[in-house]
Structures are given as structure tokens and as C-alpha cells.
């Protein structure tokens, strides 16, 4: 028995159950910090050294060995002479008589304290890691080579709306929506050890909802071998949505700025022309008075009176036009009603039937594609009147005026066009100015250039547009779009 010990770290024990004699080897004593024979080798002594928490387990192991022949091999803490408990492994084998009663038992005792401490430390560090990951303020998951979950953070569960524990479950079973592109990236990590990142990735979930992710995936190693994958993700859906909302706002602001710039240009034009149109007749009145003062002949008196009257009329006209424009600017929220295009056109034609007759104009219309528009009544009447009088006013002396109105409907707009065979406008030269106030492009005594400016203002105030296409000496087509609001 003593020989057996040599070169090994084992202590040997021998127990004669019949005679109740126990023997411990020198090494056995030494393992417990005693000199050989310093304490009595006995069952009671041994039991007295066992850590209270391990006592029950050792007794049970004895019993099951003796009764059921289960191998006796226990790990237990024994109190050394110093008073401190150390971890030991105790193995043994019994010998039985012909009746099957155990008569003798012998075995070994090994110091496994270092091993136990390392195991304990591993356990602590595993628990620490698990706890660290669980409470990490980020979505973290650690998976094995088969993509089964090992550790996961609470944020991960929350971010991906996962219920209960996912440990041990497969990533692709939890996320069946993961496509081949991501699987390929996982493969690159697991097989080639790549570290991959993405700053903005779209993740369409199984329920159709969309998440935006920022992620990093990298391998983790065990004894220099890739043992799995660590995923760190950041759900940035809110940030991306805010970004998109911001972009949209920005676009709206730019459009608004554009609109304001155009309105400002309109206002500048308006101020300029106002000044011009008010100053011209006033200047004339002054000049006429000057003329009469410096040359007071009856002829000049007559001339002055006639023309002062005309200048006063012009002034009145200008002031009427201006107040009409003010009204448009003020009444942007004018009530829209559903208007029948045919009815309004017929009313307009009736109101200027004299002019139409004297010009021998042919007026046709086809409103079958869109019979109605949703627009303030007074505005539509004014728009129609201006389109019609404009076409008549600038008709060609070479041919009978032929004016055609048509309408069309799309989802967002109803479109009205007015085509004539009149003088046409040189758009290359006047293109930008055509809808400006008091811009006339013909030597026509009636041309005051207010009509199209007012038409444009009325249409734009209601969210519509007006455009013109024209060829000199062939005719013009005006296209008006009305915003569909219902």
C-alpha cells in the first residue's frame, strides 16, 4: 500500500468494517496537514473533518455504494489541521463476503483544491460575463458555431421584441426573416474570421415592419479556434425616421422659400407697376397744366381738359385693378365649390357676346373628360373671362378667331386648356414676362396687360398653375391646372 503512494499525490486509506479498524497512509495524514498518527484514523475522526455541507452527500455516496454497488467517488471539503477547508477527491472500493455484506473497503484521497478553485473561478467569470452581457446597455448576442444562442443582453430581447429566454435556440429559427445575404455574412465570420460592420442596414421583419440597424459581427475564439459569433447591433430606426422627416421638412422649406421668392418677385413687380401706373397719369395731368400755363391758348385749354379727363379715367382704372389684386391676395382661403365648366363658359360668352359677334369668332369646347372643377366661383369666372378676352383681343386680322376649350382629369389636377389661332407670342423674347403685370406684347389699344397677371394670381392663390405655349402668327395654348381637393 505504501508503495502505491510513491510518486503520486494520493493518500491511501483502508477500512476493516467487521473489526472497525481504520488505517491511513502517511501521505493521507500529510494531505490533511498532520504528522502520521497525529490524529486517530477512525470513521468518527473522518466524519468530523468533513465540511458540514458535504456530510450528507458523502454518507449518501457510501450507502449507495454499499447497497447498490455504485462507484464511490466523491468530491468533498475536509478540514486541515490549520482549520481551513480544502477540496479533496475520495475514491474507494469495497470487498464483500459470500453473503454479500461489505467487510472491507479501501481507497484513495487526492488534493483537488487547485482544480476546484480554477473551476470556481471559471464559474464566477462565466457568471460575470453572463451578467455583464445581460445588462450591457446595447443589443449584444453571443452565439456558437451552429448559430445557437449562448448569451444575450436584455436590450437585444427588447430591441427585437423577443419573449422569454432564447438561450440554446437557433438564430435563424428566431428570425426566419433573415435572408441569404446576412447568412453569407455570418458564414464569412464563422469560417474566415472576418469582422464585418454596417452603419445603416434595413431589416424587414416577418410582420412586415421595418427596422434600421447599425451592426458589427465578429468571431470569438476558444483555444485559438473560432467558436462562434458575437453580434453587436444598434437599432437606429428612430434616428433614420427622424432623418427622413427632417429631409422632408427641408424639402418643404425649400419649396416654401421658392414660393416666397416667386411671391416676392410678384410683389416687386406689383410695386413697380403700381408706381408706374399711378405716376404716369398724374405726370400727364401736371404736364397738361404746365402746357396751358406756359401757352394759355383756347386750343390748349381744350386739349388739356380732354386729356386730364382721360388721365383721370386711367387713374381710376388702375385703382380698380389694384383693389382687385388686393382682394386676391387677401382671400387665399376663398371657398371652393364644385363648378360646371360648361355652365361657366356659357355665362362668360353671354357676358361678352357683342365682342364675340363683332370678331365673328367661333368658340368650341369639349369638357367630357372633366366636367367640373373645385374652385371659387368668382375666380373661375374671372379666369374664363380673361382667357376668352385675351384670345379675342390678340386674334389675327388674317383669319376668323377660332377658340377651343378642353378639360382633362388626373388624380391630382384638373386641367383646362384654351387654344386660339391668334397672333401668338414670341416666348423666347417675352417668356418670363408674359404673366407679369402690365406687360403687353402687341400694339393693341386695348392691351393693358392686367388680365393675365390677375388670372395667374387667382390660380396660384388656390394652389394651381398656368402655362402658355405659343407660336408667332399661329396661335397660343394656355393650360390651367386646378388642384383637386376632394
Amino acid at each position, binding site marked *: 500500500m505504501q508503495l502505491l503512494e510513491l510518486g503520486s499525490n494520493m493518500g491511501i486509506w483502508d477500512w476493516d468494517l467487521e473489526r472497525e479498524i481504520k488505517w491511513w497512509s502517511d501521505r493521507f495524514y500529510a494531505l490533511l496537514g498532520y504528522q502520521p498518527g497525529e490524529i486517530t484514523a477512525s470513521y468518527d475522526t473522518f466524519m468530523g473533518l468533513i465540511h458540514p455541507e458535504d456530510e450528507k452527500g458523502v454518507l449518501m455516496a457510501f450507502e449507495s455504494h454499499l447497497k447498490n454497488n455504485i462507484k464511490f467517488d466523491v468530491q468533498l471539503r475536509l478540514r486541515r489541521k490549520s482549520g481551513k477547508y480544502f477540496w479533496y477527491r475520495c475514491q474507494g472500493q469495497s470487498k464483500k463476503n459470500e453473503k454479500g455484506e461489505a467487510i472491507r473497503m479501501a481507497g484513495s484521497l487526492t488534493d483537488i483544491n487547485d482544480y476546484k478553485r480554477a473551476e470556481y473561478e471559471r464559474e464566477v467569470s462565466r457568471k460575470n460575463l453572463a451578467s455583464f452581457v445581460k445588462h450591457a446597455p446595447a443589443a449584444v448576442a453571443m452565439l456558437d458555431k451552429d448559430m445557437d444562442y449562448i448569451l444575450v443582453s436584455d436590450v437585444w430581447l427588447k430591441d427585437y421584441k423577443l419573449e422569454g429566454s432564447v438561450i440554446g435556440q437557433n438564430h435563424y429559427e428566431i428570425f426566419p426573416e433573415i435572408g441569404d445575404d446576412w447568412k453569407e455574412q455570418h458564414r464569412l465570420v464563422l469560417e474566415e474570421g472576418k469582422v464585418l460592420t454596417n452603419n445603416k442596414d434595413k431589416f424587414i421583419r416577418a410582420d412586415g415592419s421595418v427596422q434600421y440597424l447599425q451592426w458589427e459581427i465578429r468571431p470569438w475564439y476558444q483555444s485559438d479556434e473560432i467558436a462562434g459569433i458575437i453580434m453587436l447591433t444598434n437599432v437606429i430606426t428612430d434616428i433614420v425616421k427622424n432623418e427622413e422627416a427632417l429631409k422632408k421638412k427641408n424639402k418643404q422649406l425649400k419649396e416654401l422659400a421658392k414660393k416666397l421668392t416667386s411671391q416676392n418677385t410678384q410683389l416687386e413687380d406689383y410695386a413697380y407697376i403700381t408706381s408706374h401706373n399711378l*405716376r404716369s397719369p398724374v*405726370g*400727364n395731368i401736371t404736364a*397738361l397744366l*404746365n402746357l396751358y400755363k406756359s*401757352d394759355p391758348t383756347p386750343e390748349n385749354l381744350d*386739349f388739356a381738359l380732354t*386729356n386730364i379727363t382721360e388721365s383721370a379715367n386711367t387713374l381710376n382704372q388702375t385703382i380698380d385693378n389694384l383693389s382687385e389684386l388686393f382682394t386676391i391676395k387677401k382671400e387665399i382661403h376663398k371657398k371652393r365649390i364644385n363648378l360646371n365648366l360648361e355652365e361657366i363658359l356659357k355665362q362668360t360668352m353671354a357676358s361678352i357676346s357683342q365682342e364675340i359677334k363683332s370678331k365673328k369668332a367661333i368658340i368650341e369646347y369639349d369638357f367630357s373628360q372633366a366636367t367640373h372643377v373645385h374652385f371659387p366661383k368668382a375666380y373661375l369666372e374671372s379666369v374664363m373671362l380673361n382667357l376668352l378676352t385675351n384670345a379675342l383681343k390678340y386674334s389675327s386680322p388674317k383669319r376668323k378667331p377660332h377658340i377651343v376649350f378642353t378639360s382633362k382629369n388626373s388624380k391630382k389636377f384638373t386641367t383646362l386648356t384654351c387654344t386660339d389661332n391668334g397672333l401668338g407670342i414670341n416666348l423666347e423674347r417675352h417668356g418670363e414676362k408674359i404673366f407679369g403685370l402690365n406687360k403687353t406684347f402687341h*400694339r393693341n389699344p386695348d392691351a393693358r396687360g392686367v388680365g393675365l397677371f390677375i388670372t395667374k394670381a387667382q390660380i396660384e392663390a388656390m394652389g394651381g398653375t398656368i402655362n402658355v405655349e405659343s407660336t408667332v402668327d399661329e396661335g397660343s395654348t394656355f393650360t390651367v391646372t386646378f388642384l383637386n381637393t376632394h
Partner: protein
Amino acid sequence: MTNTPKVALVDDDIIYRITTKKLIEHKQLANEVMFFSDGEEAIDFLRLKQNTPTDLPDIILLDINMPVMDGWDFLEEYILLKPKIGKSIMLYIVSSSVSKEDIIRSKKISAVTDYIVKPITDEDLATLFESI
């Protein structure tokens, strides 16, 4: 210079044209007053008569806001034509516009002698014709 200068009024306002003409004739400042109701009519005439200086005006009174071809567009064409004309012509802008931008713009054009805000008085006219 001739003792009987010619003056061209380029303006769409007929009351202005006649009133100014009457004033000029009354003061005997010129013996011929030509009328053009927009820039295009005036530039066409100058082109036509560029080789017969005696038919050309000595003074042009140019309005800005006119239909068809306004004062600025006329000036663009006039600057190109001027070197070919065998006569020195004084050009005044006579406009009802008091816009600073218009006045500054006119000062930058060397072909423009001065800018006069309407109504033009007999004193203004006398000064213009003295400078010939």
C-alpha cells in the same frame, strides 16, 4: 450743330407725346418732333436712316416701360447701332419710374446722357436743348 434740331419722342403714352410736342413747339426749341410708340419702331427707324444723318434726331427722349420693346431692350440694340451712325445723338431717359434700380442702371450705360423723372418741365427741356 444745326440751329433747327430734331427731337424723337419714344413713348407709348400718346398724351405725353402730344403734350411734350406742344411744349417744344411753343418754346421753339426744335423744328421737328418725331413720334415712336415703342422701342422697336424707333430702332427700326434709326437703322433705316443710319446713313442719312440729316434725317436722324439730335435728341432722343426714351421711356422705359413700353410694350413690344421696352427702353432697356432698345438701348441694347442702340448701343450696337451707335458706332455706325454718322451723328452724335443725345439720349435722355424720361420715365415715370422713380425706382432706384432703374436710375442706377441707366447711369451705367454711357449712351444715356441723363435720367429725367416725368413730368418733364419747360425748364428741363430748355436745359436739354442748350446742351446741343
